[in-house]
Every structure is written in C-alpha cells, then in structure tokens.
C-alpha cells in the first residue's frame, strides 16, 4: 500500500491553505507558542549553554550515522540479548508484510498504535486494515486525524491545523459525542473511548524515538501515556524503527531525549520518557509476551550515500516547522506527503523522488531559522539550495529562477556581496512595490511582502559597536 504523493501540487494546495483563515490562525498560534517555549527551555541556563547542548546533540547523531552499519549490528545483538526479535525491512511493503506476519503468528485481531511518523511513511494503518485488522491510533491528535480520515499536518501536533469546533464536530459525527466546546470534556470523552481499546488490544505498535545500540533499548517519548499503554498492555509489542534512529551510548541518549522535548514543546522532559528493554521478564505478570523491533530502511540507505546524509540526523521535533514562515502560514498538508515544513521540503524529494516534488525545494525563503532552531544543527537551507541545483541539472527549473537562486546563493556566502544584495533588494522594492515576481508572486497575492529595513542590521551593528568602543575608551580615560 503506497501513500499518495501530491507534492507537485504544492502551489494549488498552498493556495487552499492560504484561503482558510481558521487553519492559518490555528497553525500560526500553535507554531508561535511552541517557538517561544523552545527558546525559554533551550536557553534557560544561558545562550552559550543552549548552543553547546545543540552541538552535543548534533555530534551524537552524526557520530552514530558515521558508524551506522556497525552500530546497527551492535544494536541487533543487544536487542536480542534483551529478548527482542529483530526483523529488517527494505521498504514499506516489506515492513507492513512483517507486521502482518507477526499479527497472524500471534492470532492478533485488534491493534493499538502510538504515534509514529515512520508508520505514516509506510501506510501501515491501511495495510493492516486491508488485511482485516482493527487499528486504532491512540495519540489524541492521531485519533482525531484517523477519525477525520486525514493525515497529520505537523510532526508533533498532528491536528494543529484544526480548531476546537472542528474537532468537536469530528467527535460528534464519528462517535456520537454529546456536543461540547469544553476541551477537558472532549479529552475525557476520548479517554473513555480509547480505554476500552487499550485493554482489549492484542498487539501494540509503536515507533521508536531512539534505539540505543550499547544497551539494545528503545527510547520513546510521550505526554499522554498512550505509548506506555500500547507497549505494556497488549500481548505483543512491535516497534517500527527507522535505521537512522540509532544512538551509540546511554550518554548520547540522555542528551538527545532532553534536547528533543526542549526543542519541540519547551518541556525539559516529556511526561513519560520510556526505555523499553524487551518483553516481560519471567517474574513479571504484566507486559508483552513477545516484543519485536522492525528496522526499516525505506529509502534511508539511498540518502546515506548522498550529500543529503545530514537529513538522517533529524530527530522529528518539529522545531523547524514552528520556526518556518512558510510553514506557519499554511501548515503541513500543502507539502503533499508525510513531512511538512523545512525538513519536509528536504525529506520529501529524497524519499519520493525529486521529479515528484519539484516545487518543494523552493518552498522556503531561505531565512535560515530552520537551521538555527534545529537541535541537531541540520543545515536545511544548504540542502534546499543543493536540491534546487539538482533540479536545474535535471532541467526541471526555469532559467530565470535558476539565476535568481544562484545569485542568492552567491550573495549568502560573502559578507560584501550580502551587503550588496541588501542594497539591490531595497532599490528593487522601490521599483516593484509590494508585488513580487515568480513563485513569490503567489505568496504576495495573499500578503504584503515586508518592507526591507531602511538601514540594514549590519550598518546599525557597526555603528553601535563603534560608539561602544568610544564609550569604553572614555571610561578608561
């Protein structure tokens, strides 16, 4: 079962989102709130400390990717030592087939699922349902998405694009909830409904935020507790884990499992930070009797061999989505596949083929916020530019656009030329007014392009530094 790719419809899908005021309001509010919470938590000690934690996390992921094949074998050995059964899947079809085989082996009829972006890539729900299994998403946001027959629009907040009234309507229409506008009542309703599913499910399917090679453990983070239910209550637990989720040591894990929620929702730790070491032990009367890990490639080993390997360091925190002005304005669905925002604009072409996602490398103003907020310092703007270059090489891009982008790339790499670019932009805006040409025209159809500052920051900074130096000289005198 393949997942639909609509990324070449980006402009049209963006247009729909830009005409939906409710969506724009909901996404704007959600992303901005998370953006500021991240700042508070990541830099609670000092900006230097926050930055060094980011570098520590970046190093842990890059070191793990460098040694990936060795670490995968190490992880496999240690997972098995803990009693996990380890399976490997090249693609979505194989992964889903393995899941189905496990389900059949254990006579599984119903499945509870905790949030997993990988399972969205794989189309797991459809594959299991097509085979006659009952599958229930149990993260509240994913539950609503499943009931509404939609796809998640944000990595962390899948239902970020919906208003409270829209969610109420989903519960009322799909499950016959008594109408209410009280979020607490809606949560209590969902809790009651899902509680029954948790208790009677035969198999729980989870993702894995981290796979710790040296201990053979799956690290899961969650706030609601649904992941604990899915991995503790059913007879069988299966973790779907992308091969890039490896970390080497427990120290690396300690850094990453804190940097992830700090960057994502501004929590020091999620409510539940779960470390899973296999099935129940002989002296336990609770927990799954059988625990499996399916290591999934699904295109990752192709990316590994390219200049885009850095994209595999992503820990799916959603910070780049929260920071991105393009994502903020229209949410994730316009990107047309599983991942939206800057990381989606990079991952989608890599996973589904550049020819199936030609507009996405352009779905960015290259403002650089995404790199700045990334907890593992992924150079998303660099990769977007490289993807644009690949488009040019493939003859997929118009000459004018190609030129503009090359200029932009050149301008960004030298301070002098950067300054000149600013001068040119200011002058250009005088001529063009508020309407921008090319792809930006679609953008400015719905909003004014902000004025360039009359004096560039670099000039203000130089002037300020100049006066500071003077002040200090005077003080000393």
């Amino acid at each position, binding site marked *: 079962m393949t997942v639909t790719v609509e990324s070449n419809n980006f402009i049209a899908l963006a247009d729909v989102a830009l005409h939906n005021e409710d969506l724009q309001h909901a996404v704007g509010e*959600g992303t901005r709130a998370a953006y500021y919470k991240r700042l508070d938590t990541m830099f609670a000690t000092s900006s230097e400390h926050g930055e060094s934690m980011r570098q520590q996390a970046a*190093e842990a992921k890059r070191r793990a990717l460098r040694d990936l094949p060795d670490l995968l074998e190490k992880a496999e050995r240690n997972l098995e030592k803990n009693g996990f059964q380890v399976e490997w899947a090249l693609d979505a079809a194989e992964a889903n087939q393995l899941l189905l085989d496990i389900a059949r082996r254990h006579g599984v009829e119903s499945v509870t699922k905790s949030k997993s972006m990988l399972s969205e890539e794989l189309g797991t729900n459809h594959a299991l349902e097509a085979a006659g299994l009952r599958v229930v998403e149990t993260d509240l946001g994913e539950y609503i998405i499943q009931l509404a027959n939609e796809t998640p629009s944000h990595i962390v907040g*899948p239902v970020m694009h919906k208003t*409270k009234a829209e969610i109420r309507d989903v519960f009322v229409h799909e499950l016959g909830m008594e109408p209410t506008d009280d*979020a*607490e009542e809606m949560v209590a309703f969902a809790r009651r409904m899902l509680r029954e599913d948790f208790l009677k499910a035969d198999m729980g399917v989870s993702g894995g935020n981290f796979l710790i090679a040296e201990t053979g453990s799956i690290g899961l983070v969650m706030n609601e*507790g649904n992941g604990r239910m899915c991995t503790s209550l059913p007879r069988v637990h299966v973790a779907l884990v992308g091969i890039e989720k490896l970390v080497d040591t427990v*120290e690396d894990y300690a850094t990453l499992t804190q940097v992830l929620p700090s960057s994502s929702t501004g929590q*020091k730790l999620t409510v539940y930070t779960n470390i899973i070491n296999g099935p129940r032990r002989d002296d336990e009367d609770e927990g799954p009797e059988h625990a499996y890990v399916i290591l999934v490639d699904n295109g990752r080993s192709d990316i590994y061999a390219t200049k885009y390997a850095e994209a595999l360091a992503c820990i799916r925190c959603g910070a780049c989505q929260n920071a991105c002005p393009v994502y903020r304005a229209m949410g994730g669905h316009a990107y047309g596949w599983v991942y939206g925002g800057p990381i989606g604009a990079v991952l989608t072409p890599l996973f589904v083929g550049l020819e199936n996602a030609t507009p996405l490398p352009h779905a960015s103003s290259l403002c650089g916020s995404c790199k700045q907020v990334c907890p593992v310092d992924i150079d998303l703007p660099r990769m977007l530019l490289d993807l644009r270059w690949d488009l040019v090489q493939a003859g997929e891009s118009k000459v004018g656009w190609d030129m503009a982008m090359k200029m932009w790339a050149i301008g960004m790499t030298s301070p002098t030329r950067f300054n000149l670019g600013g001068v040119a932009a200011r002058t250009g805006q005088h001529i063009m007014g508020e309407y921008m040409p090319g792809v930006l025209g679609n953008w400015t159809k719905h909003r004014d392009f902000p004025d360039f500052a009359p004096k560039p920051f670099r000039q203000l900074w130089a002037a300020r530094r100049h006066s500071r130096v003077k002040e200090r000289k005077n003080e000393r005198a």
Partner: protein
Amino acid sequence: MSAREQILGKLRQARQPFTDVQPIQDRQPMIPMAGLSAADQLSRFISEAEALGCCVYQVSPNEAIEQIMDLLDGDKTVSSWDEAELPLPGLRGMLESLGVSVGAHQDGDTRLGITGVTAALAATGSLIVESGAGRYRSTSLLPDVHIALMRAEQILPDLESWEEAQRRAGYPAFTRSSNTTVISGPSKTADIAHQLVKGAHGPREVHVMILG
C-alpha cells in the same frame, strides 16, 4: 539476499559520511546541577515537581497513611505495588483492615494507584519507575490518581547522574528492568486547540509523598 544483508551492504558501500565529526571534549548535562547540596536538591525537586502539576508532601509514615486515607475517599479497591516494594510498611494492612482490596488491579477502573520509585530527579522533578516482580507498570498508568512514595535519599541531580550510576554498576543495570519510565508530572495533552488538559490517558493527578 536478505533485507538485512542488502541494507548493511548498501551502507558499507556508501562513502562514509561525517568522518570529520569532532568528539565533544567537555560533555555537559542538559541542566547544570553541580555543587547542589542534598538539601538544595530536595527543594529543587519539590519546586520542579510542583511546577509540573504534582502535589508534593513531606510527611512522616503516619501522616502519609492519613493522606492516603483522605485521597481514598471511601473507594473499596486500590491498585498497588507489592508491599515489599513500597517504603511504607503497614499501609497494606491498614487499608485491608478498612475492607479495601489492595492488589495489582489491572482492570482500568481502579481510581487510585500506589507505587514506590527507583529514583527521583531534582533538575526535572521526575520519578523513575522500573517494572519488575511486584512493581506493576499499570499502577502508575491506568488509575486517575497516582501516589508515589519515596524517601529524600532517592533524589539524584538529573537524568545524566542516574545513567552514570547505572554505568558504574555495569551493563545489566541498564537493562535489569523490561520497562523503565521517567515520569514528569501528570499525563497531559495540548492536541485540542493548544489548550493544556491533564489526564489524557494516564493519571490526571500525581501525589508525591517524601517520607521522613
């Protein structure tokens, strides 16, 4: 060729990325806690746990039992870890003398769950629970109200120091439990219009009793 061989083969054939990655010389914990006395750690733990929405009590064993009776509010079943796993001897007897059925009760209807903790973390106000014989996973998960019993000596500075202690104890220490959970406050969600609601699927109340 198996999927395993194909994946590993492809990765090994690829030009290895990030060969220039520089190891971090001076690893730092996420939240600096160095130099905090035991008393400082205790007060930090309390303030962090309260900020997460936990109710924290510093009580004698007798006061703890009184508090639990209050929270019991007439219920006739309580989900609990085995008595040997709790730092409060006599609790089970007291409850049973009142006609309360005390046990694992994994039915999903019992309102109150009582556990001990493996350790508590000052920097994040967290409780660490490890599953095992007599230490049920569901006790801190299914009930509406989770009561965690602990002693002040169980407080460690942070997640890093807990893991350091495990490393000193060797490999089996990390994996001695099939399921370890670091709990930081009551279950919550903000999926509905970004509004924070407690008690999404796990407990909506967490009461932490620090026994003196």
